[in-house]
């Protein structure tokens, strides 16, 4: 039982060692070929067959992941092997084609394979980097709890503002109303803050940029030193500023969390459809190769 052992380290990186061995053997096979190396030699067929088998096996992860009763290894082990064999596949595929490219279905299969592997590498990088970053960003709060806390700050701000002049109440109300968070997948990835606020009570539709809640905070900060407020109101303004700044910090954390959480899902939108396309094109590639015989 050890904590923090990522999938690359699974079982002392056993699958990494296997993949490395496989890579060395395949390079050896490639070396034996006479020029020009290509898919039509015995070396090419050997590497091609191996590569195709690996591709089929790699896609089986999708099935194993959903075979919840299976006792065939663990999904963690499968994922670890998936990563290493996927990486070595780039080498095997490249050696198989012998660096010969053209405008044909064979190269299309190669390109698709590269897209899948590169998207996989990106996914792996996300899997390795993001959990720690997300953990420290979230400070052990769940998304639901963060949103609940956010609601709490909103309410608190409104309650404090209720004892302050109407312009301030309006500003707080307007800022809350026009704070943007989340949205569609793209909005979540971009994590763009298009929050706005109206600081003019007479023109509630006259919205100005409130990115990072800057406009609102600056407005309150400039209100604070003014002599027109009573001592009690000063206290309230101070409290309001505190709450709003905590709210701002939380908003940043939430945006970052959404951004990362979406990234963790969205790379699969490339990886999986391209894998399926690869399977199709690969089949066509193999069938068409038989016509050369």
């Amino acid at each position, binding site marked *: 039982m050890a904590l923090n052992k990522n999938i690359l380290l699974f079982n002392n990186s056993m699958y990494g060692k296997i993949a490395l061995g496989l890579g060395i053997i395949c390079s050896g096979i490639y070396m034996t070929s006479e020029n020009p190396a290509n898919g039509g030699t015995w070396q090419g067929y050997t590497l091609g067959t191996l590569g195709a088998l690996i591709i089929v096996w790699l896609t089986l992860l999708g099935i194993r992941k959903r075979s919840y009763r299976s006792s065939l290894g663990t999904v*963690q082990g499968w994922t670890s092997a998936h990563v290493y064999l996927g990486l070595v596949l780039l080498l095997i595929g490249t050696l198989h084609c012998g660096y010969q490219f053209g405008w044909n279905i064979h190269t299309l299969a190669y390109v698709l394979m590269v897209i899948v592997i590169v998207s996989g590498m990106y996914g792996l990088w996300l899997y390795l980097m993001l959990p720690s970053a997300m953990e420290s960003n979230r400070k052990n709060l769940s998304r639901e709890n963060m949103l609940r806390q956010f609601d709490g700050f909103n309410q608190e701000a409104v309650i404090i503002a209720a004892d302050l002049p109407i312009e301030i109440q309006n500003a707080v109300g307007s800022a809350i109303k026009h704070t943007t968070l989340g949205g569609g997948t793209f909005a979540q990835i971009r994590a763009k803050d298009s929050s706005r606020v109206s600081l003019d009570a007479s023109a509630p539709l006259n919205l100005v940029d409130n990115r990072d809640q800057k406009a609102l905070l600056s407005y309150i900060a400039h209100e604070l030193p003014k002599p027109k407020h009573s001592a009690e109101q000063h206290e309230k303004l101070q409290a309001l500023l505190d709450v709003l700044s905590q709210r701002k910090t939380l908003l940043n954390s939430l945006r970052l969390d959404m951004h990362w959480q979406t990234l963790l899902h969205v790379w699969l939108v490339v990886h999986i459809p391209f894998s399926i396309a690869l399977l199709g094109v690969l089949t066509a590639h193999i069938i068409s190769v038989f016509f050369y015989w």
Partner: protein
Amino acid sequence: MSKYHIVIIGSGPAGLSAAARAAYHDQQTGRAEPSYILLEGFSRISKTIDEYQKGKHVMAEPGFIDLRSDLNFEINTRERILDEWNRGVQESKVNIRYNAEVVSVEGTQGDFTINLKNGEKISAEFVVLGIGLQGNPRKLGVAGEDLADVAYTLSDPDEFKEQTIVVIGAGDAAIENALALARNNKVYIVNRRSEFSRAKEGNLNGVLAAINNKRLDFSCIYDAGVSEVREYTQDGCKLQIDLKTPDGLKTISCHRVIGRLGAIAPRDFVEKCGITFPSDKPDAIPVLSSKYESNVPGLYIIGALAGYPLIKQAMNQGYDVIEFILGNNIRPVDHELLAARFALLPYHRDVEEVIELLQQQIPMFQQMNALLLRELLNESDLHVSFPKAEMAEAQRSLDQLVRNDTRGRLRPSIAVAEGDFLFRNEDYSNTFFTILEGEVDIRVKNKEGKYLTFTLGPGQFFGEMSLISGRPRNGDAIAKKDCILLETPRRTMLKLVNSNDEIRLGIDWVFITRALQGFFAPRGNVFDIRQIAHATKLNRYVKGDYLYKEGERGDKLFLIRSGTVNLQKNIGGVPISLSQAKTAQVIGEMALLGSPLRHESAIAVSQVETIELSQDALNALFAQDDVGRAKVEEAAAQRLLTNTDVQTYNQRNNRVSFLMDQGLGEATNALVIDTKLCVGCDNCEVACAETHGGISRLNRKAGVGFADLQVPVACRHCESPHCMKDCPANAIHRAPSGEVFIDDTCIGCGNCESNCVYDVIHMAYPQREKNSVWSWMFLGLGSRPGEKPVDKKRQASEAQGKKAVKCDSCKDLSGGPACVRSCPTGAAKRISPDQFIDILKVQ
């Protein structure tokens, strides 16, 4: 003063069934005036069941026992069952009197006087008590406590909308009612203290969240007591309540007051009738004869108060008790079942004779009354050993018996081959074995890998260690030639121990003797060790108690009998957990090995029981066997070594404190998430749902996190499971490999749900078999992974009522827990407290 042959008190299932039987006899003999009367303190029958929540399904367990009553009863909703009984009561013209609360019963057989609350007296020759265990709710105890809108129960919170309701009390019932009402009403909850200390964690969090939730009209009045309730008809309100608060008198106008102040246990009343209890334990059961007669001649006790919480049992007893009083010596309904249980016994005698014989032969049974022994036999398995050559023959006769039992209710004796294991070392079973005849070998492996064998004979028992501590078996038990054994489930045994001091002390003494022998002197003399056992002290601690404190001088060591103790040391002003000690481990030994100053504090992290040894007792044990001293010294050295390890990993140590705070100290197998690896895919929850009928038994997101660890809301398979405590159907078991699971006999009462302090048990409708992922993915059939199965006959499954569901750690899957195996990054792990130290060693 009216006079009856029989007075039945309480119209629950037991009392109603008794009255129906008495009515039947009256009808048979053509009496014009009833010979009996049924007295009910409430305005309707079966108050306890009447107060179940609306639409609750009432189960008819145990399925293997037949119903014998003039009233019908089968699995149905609360409403239907009550309707059916009301109809039965009318049809058989049962002589029932409502609102007749009995204050006392005086006298003896032939001359009882029953005093009612209104001052009326009734005389009777026989009295049957069927008043159940719920007791009467404790009232407010102030003027106005009986006003129309002052209630002490709440069956349907949705009945009230847009009202102001004051809930009095701070226990779970009060909080649950208040939270349910707060959805549609303005609610005040009145707490006598300054905090909600009695509530379980889930309710505590719920009530605190509600108080702080500005959108709910929910407030708590702390440190407050009620001083008066009065009618008040202004502002659309009905009542006005005065509260004494630290800020002076506070008056609230409201529509309704609900008091949830617990119940007055019926024990005082029962004792006032002259009935004695065998012990002071709160769950003790009065001593009864095999015909339910108490120590007061002519006064009979049936139903839950007699120790039978299930409706069907209670109804059967109602029937039987009237027959017994009328002098009809009928055979109990379980006669046939016991006959099958005794099938392999070599005696060839009638059931009653066998029971009598066993009672004479076995010392422990001599302490029990006939009724308890009968129940023990009914709920236990009987094992009979045969030479290997005769096994086939024995099995054939059992198969024959089962074949003839067309209704599949019989549980005949079990044949075991000579030399077979009854249990093995490390098994998680916790049943209790009594040897009726023959011998059993107990084999314990010592550190060198050699077996030490003890032979136990007739009248002796074993398995008490796991029964008491909840820990796995320590050693193998092997059946020898011609032995006959009774294997009793934990729940039955605990009930027995709680209601019989003699048996409890006997088992305790044997436990201590064996624990001392096992730990200190395996080769010592049993008789001498028994004497030493007498000189030890048994201590009990609740969570948070100190066994001893750092810096104190000590002169005792503690052998832990059950529970977990956290050893803590102050390092740089911060308390740091050094290690956890569990059952069968010794702590505080350094004080008796020459360094009397305690170097750490020992704190109970669950309910803990210890055997306390003085220097003299320890020396006496060391004199018995030289292994003892070496073992204690080794244990001490090991602990010191671990402590140095822990100090090396000092900074990460607060992780262990966090796990302890989350209650993992009492866990045997808990799910934790490594948040440095978790990508939030929720495949763990989906896998759980997919392998458990579409309902996930774990909730990852709701878990609590600290540093890089998260403890999801999921079962920890506690060492002494809280859920097992109070299961009327005995449906919660522990598999030999340690998993705590609920079987199909669950009656859906919800006791386990409320007893679980970690909120991991839920009530759910039984689900249909889940469709495969592939038919959903490719054909669009069924529901998606992680969701409930599509059920076209949903109403039919819902009619069966909800049952309790919880994690079973996938005990039936060959690969182990699906949550762990389906985690793509290895973030989900299952750990036991022994592995906490590994967590510290993270790089």
